[in-house]
Structure formats: C-alpha cells, structure tokens
C-alpha cells in the first residue's frame, strides 16, 4: 500500500511487466466506445471538440456580420438575417463554445489533478455532455425547423439576452424564440450536472494528503465556478420556464400588456448573466494559475490570497447584476449601489493580476507558445478590466451602455482574456491529452497573427461606441463618421480567422506527426504530469499520496520540497 508519492517513472511501468500492442479495432467499435463512454477524459475531449466546431461556426457568423457592417447602408445580408446572426453568434459562443470548452477542460483535468480515477458520478457526467450537445443541435435545427414571421432563415433573432416583451408571442411569432429557450434549458441542465460532479469530486475524492489547502489552484477555481453555476444557471432556467408559460400557457410573467414587467426579465436574466461571465473567466484564471508558474519556473505567488480572491470574486459577482441595467430607470439609489458593488469586485480581481505579476517577477520566463498566449492574457485582461471599470461608472454607462464600447469591452474579456488563455491551455495540455507536442513554430505564428487581428478589431471597436454607435444594428447612416472604424474592425476579423485555422491545422497535424510528448514535457509540478501521455483509463496505477501543493516539485527537489514551507 503506497504511503508516499512514487517517482513519475515508476508509476505506470512497474519493472518486469510485458506489454502487448492492442489489435486494431473496427471503426464501429471505436464509435461505440466514445458514444457510451463514462470516462471523464473522453467526455472532456468530446466537450472540447464539440465546442471547437461551434467556435468555427460562430466565428463564421461574426465574419458575416463584419462584412455587413464594413460599409454604411450595406445590403450584404438582410436585416432579419443580421438580427439572427448576432443572436446566434452570442448564444452559441456563450452556451455552446464557452461553457462546453471550459467544462471540458475541467472534466479532463480535475480528477487527474486531485489523484482520482474519475469523476464522482461518471454516468451523470455522460448524461450532462449529451444533453448539452443535444441543446446545441436543437438551437441550430431552428435554421431549418422554425417558422418565423419573415420567411426563411428563421433562427432566433431576439438577441442573446432575449429581452421581454420582444420574446412574447405577439412580437416573436413562430418558434424561433422557443428553439432558443429550449436549447439553453437543456444546456443548463447539463451545466448543473457537470458542476455538481466537479463539486462532489473535489470534495469527496481527493487523494490522501491532499487537503483543500494543497489542491492546485485550478481545482479551487473550478470549485468556485461550479458553485456559481448552481446559483446562476438556475435563475435562467426559472426565467425560461416562465417565458415558456407566457408564450404557451397564457401566463403574464413578462406580459406588459397585462401588467407584467419587462424589467423583471432583465433582473432574472442578469442575475444569471453576470455570474455567467464569471463562470466563463474563472476557468481562464485557473489555467493561468497553472501555466504561468511553470513557465516562470516559480511557485504561484500568494496561494492563500489567490484562493480568497477567487472565492471573493464568486460571492461579489452575485451582487453586481444590475450594472447591465443602469439605463432602465432603477433610480439613483440602485444605480449607486450597483456602481459600488461592481467597483468592489475589481479589488480581488486586481489582487489576482498582481499575484501573477509577482510570480513572473524574479522567475526565468520561457516563451513557449503557451506562455506567449498567457502573457497576452495578462495585458489584455488588464485592459478589459479597466474598460469594465469605466462602464461600472453609471453615468459613463448611460452614454456607453448598449454601444460598441460595451461590445468591445466584453469581447476584450471573452477573446483577449478567455480565448487567449484557452489557446495557452491547449498548447500546455494537448501533449498530455494526445501524447504529442503541438508545433511550437506554428504556435508562434498562430499567436502573432491572432494577436494582430485581435487588436485591430477590438482596440478600435471602442471608438464607434464613443462616437455614438449602438449595438445590434444591421447598418448605420453614412453621416455618423463610423465607417472608417468599422472597416478597420472588419479587417482584424480576417487575421483572427487565419490564426484560428492555423491552430486547427496545428492540432490535426501534430496528432499524427508531432513529437512524442512523454509524461512531463514542461517539467511541471502537479499530479497530471505523473501519468503517461495520454493517461490510461484508470489514470493512476497507484493512487498517490501528497504532502504539499506541488508533489512533483517535491520529488524533483528532495533537498528543497514545498512541504517544508507549508
């Protein structure tokens, strides 16, 4: 019985064992394996693959919008098509790219990092994946199946936050809105299931010695994220049930013509919507917490503060929702409160940023593709946070709210912070997941091309907002002075598309031709690097016992183990 952490090389290759090469399996067998799997690693990969497909689709939707907006009074797409495009782009990116890809990484990494063999409820895990996947397919079926008022192309067109009473039957006849509602309801059930799994796994299945204070920060952040899911996704589920009742059972929750309140939908939606964006960013923080230390060759600075800040962000994020409603007429009292709450959240967020800076400080920084994306994340998250502070100032939001300034801000977070950190995570963990290294050369090309495109688009996108351009408009007047900015913004989209395609190519090519990774290509310190790449189905031949936050550091540095400092 193991009472200490075995050396990495010993774990899965006990001396003297003979291994056999497995015979090639039929394609049908392989498919059956994947469809019926309950293995957290396979489910994680399916979540990620699913999300990448939708990333490309939603990215294409963005390209179409950018073509339409490049010139004033353009007729590249009809108003109805454009309105569906921004609705589908937003809905897809949040629910069928962001959530699945982040839960996919969580699914894959959390059990490995805590020394467990699988999630707490493997069958629930599979169920959650398939119901979310079905939700996405249902949403896209609306392109064929919905019968909107204005003819073909009847995907939902109510915006990703579907304000009432635009979503009432009288203003959105046909079924396009219902596809939106049902698709997200299903995906919400999947999200709650996965979050439940993560919490139960984290609390109940850590390997011996791994007290909560020794968990990798990634696991902490997924714990906070999952807790947020319970209290954030559920309000949306409730609101959508109410919307369905309004549309089909004649109820009056948001039926303004019968005394219902449009603002109530906004409250319910944003009670979901704001924590949702924290649900999206916290995993990006999780990746940063693992990747930045390894490529700086230093432990994360301020682990306890990082935990406290993450938990604090989780709690405070539940109290800021009405900063999306500063222009709705809540009154000066509410506007003042939500300004304060939103500003307060910048304190723990800043603490995290400073801790990353302090981790870099005095380190030996290796500029791998993964680290380059992480550094991009640091700068861009700083800027995104500062533009968020501007918007938290309610009077500034009275001008800039619902304008392209807001669109620029949240894309700065979603693309500049989250997507960059996701790319970083891909370059970092792809070797573990596939057994091969991604091409560093292609990775650096990917980084620079994407970086140029990102800044062309989203730096300059702040300007039309400052010049009065509202969001969600399919075209604009020529006399507003917005055209030049829109052209620049659209040009950046091309670079981002090119960078993304390069990335996809890298992943496919490297799977077959990339150099073999081995168990620990980055000389890292957490438990997932002690397994072969890819890990076997059972993860660990022997469940490890840990004595510090960086068990592999202790093994590699027996003269100076972390356990001495805890």
């Amino acid at each position: 019985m193991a009472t200490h952490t075995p050396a990495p090389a010993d774990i899965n290759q006990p001396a003297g064992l003979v291994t056999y090469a497995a015979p090639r399996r039929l394609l049908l067998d392989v498919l059956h394996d994947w469809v019926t799997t309950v293995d957290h690693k396979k489910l994680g990969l399916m979540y990620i693959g699913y999300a990448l497909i939708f990333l490309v689709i939603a990215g294409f939707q963005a390209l179409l919008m950018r073509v339409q907006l490049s010139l004033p009074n353009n007729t590249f797409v009809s108003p109805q098509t454009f309105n569906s495009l921004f609705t589908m782009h937003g809905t897809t990116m949040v629910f069928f790219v962001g959530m699945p890809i982040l839960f996919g990484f969580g699914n894959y990494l959390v059990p490995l990092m805590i020394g467990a063999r699988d999630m707490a409820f493997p069958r629930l895990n599979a169920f959650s994946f398939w119901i979310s996947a079905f939700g996405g397919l249902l949403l896209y079926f609306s392109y064929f199946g919905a019968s909107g008022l204005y003819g073909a192309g009847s995907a939902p067109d109510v915006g990703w936050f579907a304000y009432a009473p635009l979503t009432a039957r009288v203003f959105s006849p046909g079924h396009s809105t219902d596809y939106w509602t049902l698709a997200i309801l299903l995906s919400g059930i999947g999200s709650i299931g996965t979050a439940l799994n993560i919490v139960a796994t984290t609390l109940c299945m850590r390997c011996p010695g791994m007290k909560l204070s020794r968990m990798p920060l990634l696991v902490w952040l997924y714990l906070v994220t999952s807790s947020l899911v319970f209290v954030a996704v559920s309000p949306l589920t409730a609101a959508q049930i109410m919307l369905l009742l309004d549309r089909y059972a004649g109820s009056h929750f948001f039926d303004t013509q019968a005394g219902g309140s449009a603002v109530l939908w906004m409250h319910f939606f944003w009670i979901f919507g704001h924590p949702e964006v924290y649900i999206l960013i916290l995993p990006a923080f999780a990746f940063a917490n693992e990747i930045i230390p390894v490529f700086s060759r230093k432990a994360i600075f301020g682990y306890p503060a990082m935990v406290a800040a993450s938990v604090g962000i989780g709690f405070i994020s539940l109290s800021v929702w009405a900063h999306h409603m500063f222009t709705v007429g809540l009154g000066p009292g509410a506007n003042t409160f939500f300004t304060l709450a939103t500003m307060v959240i910048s304190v723990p967020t800043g603490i995290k940023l400073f801790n990353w800076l302090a981790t870099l400080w005095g380190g030996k920084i290796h500029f791998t593709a993964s680290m380059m994306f992480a550094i991009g994340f640091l700068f861009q998250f700083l800027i995104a946070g500062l533009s968020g502070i501007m918007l938290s100032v309610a009077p500034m939001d009275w001008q800039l709210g619902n304008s392209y300034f807001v669109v620029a801000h949240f894309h700065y977070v979603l693309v500049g912070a989250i997507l960059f950190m996701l790319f970083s995570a891909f370059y970092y963990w792809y070797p573990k997941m596939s057994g091969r290294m991604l091409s560093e050369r292609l990775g650096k090309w990917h980084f620079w091309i994407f970086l140029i495109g990102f800044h062309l688009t989203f730096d300059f996108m702040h300007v039309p907002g400052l010049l009065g351009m509202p969001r969600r408009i399919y075209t604009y007047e020529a006399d507003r002075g917005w055209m030049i900015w829109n052209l620049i913004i659209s040009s950046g989209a091309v670079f981002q598309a090119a960078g993304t395609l390069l990335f996809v190519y890298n992943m496919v090519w490297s799977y077959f031709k990339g150099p073999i990774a081995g168990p620990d290509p980055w000389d890292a310190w957490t438990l997932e690097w002690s397994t072969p790449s890819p890990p076997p189905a059972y993860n660990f031949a022997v469940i490890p016992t840990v004595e510090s936050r960086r068990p592999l550091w202790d093994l590699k540095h027996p003269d100076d183990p972390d356990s001495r400092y805890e």
Partner: protein
Amino acid sequence: MSQAAVIPQTIPWVLPSRGVVGMACLIIAESAIFTIFIVAYIYYLGKDTSGPTPRQVLDLPIFTTLCLLSSSLTVHLAVSALHRANRTFCSLWLAATVLLGGIFLTGTAREWHKLIVRDGLTLQTNLFGTTFYSLVGLHATHVLVGLVMLSLALIFSLNGSMTAKHTGRLEVLSLYWHFVDAVWVVVFTVVYVLGR
C-alpha cells in the same frame, strides 16, 4: 525517492460522502430556481387591477401542510429503521411517507379544482394566478417526483432488494424530501400567510 512525511496510519483520510454532497448541490440549485419563482410572486403582490386576490380565494391549507411536514419525520424514521436493518419498519415508515405525501398532493389538487371552477382563477386570469399556480405547481411537481422515488424505495424495501448497506442512498433521498418540505414552509409562509 522522498522519505519525508509518511502519512501515519492513525490519521484516517476521511472525505464527505459523494451522495450527500451531490444532493446538497442539487438542493442549492433547486433552491435558486424556487427563489426566482418566489421573488416573482412577491414582486407581483398587489399589482393586479382585476381578478381574484389571494385574500378572497385562499384558505390556509393547515391539514395538508401538517401531513407534508410529518412525512419528513416518517422518512427520517424509515432511514433509521433501515440503518438498524429493520426491513419491516422501514417499509412501514416509507409507506406512511408516501401516504402523507399523497394526501398533500390530493389536497393541492382539490384546492386547485376549487380555485379554477368556483373562483375562476387560472394561470391566465391575472398576475396572482400566474405566479400562484407556477410556484405551487413547481413545488407540487417536486413532491410528485419525490413520491415516485419514495415509492420505488418502498418497493425495493418490500421485496428485500434494499438492505442496511443502502442506508446512505436512502438518506440522500430523504435529504431531497426534507428539502421539498422546507420549500413548502417558505411557500406556505409567503403565499398563505404574508401574501393574503
């Protein structure tokens, strides 16, 4: 290989039970859903300009409430009985729980029948109708699901499939049932006491 800190065998590595943690998470999520429906109910109190009001048509459902709350006790007794491997009493207390829950649902059905037929209150009538039926109905749905699960447990207890080693699972189910009862306490207070 590090010879540092071998975990002494005397300190056991004990972690919470997965079932309990999982059910706690589900309860938190469901509480959030109920909270939204309760907020909607409170928000729209007094905002109706027509149709029946709570004061006019709602009677305190004391009997059915007592039944439901007692069923929490009976399910607890069922878990204790199973823990002591007393199959007979476990089945007995489970049956009592199902019966009491069934009485509650029947009472709700009768109340709704009266409201619809005699008072003309439906989901569509006014804001009170909308929020009342959706909130009470959401709760009743949860009661129904709970009764189905409890009936399954009863069957497994009667045919001998459920034994003392399944006590943890029955306890997880009982947590759900306690949650359903706790929600009713809140709904009862908001709808029938404060709201009238």
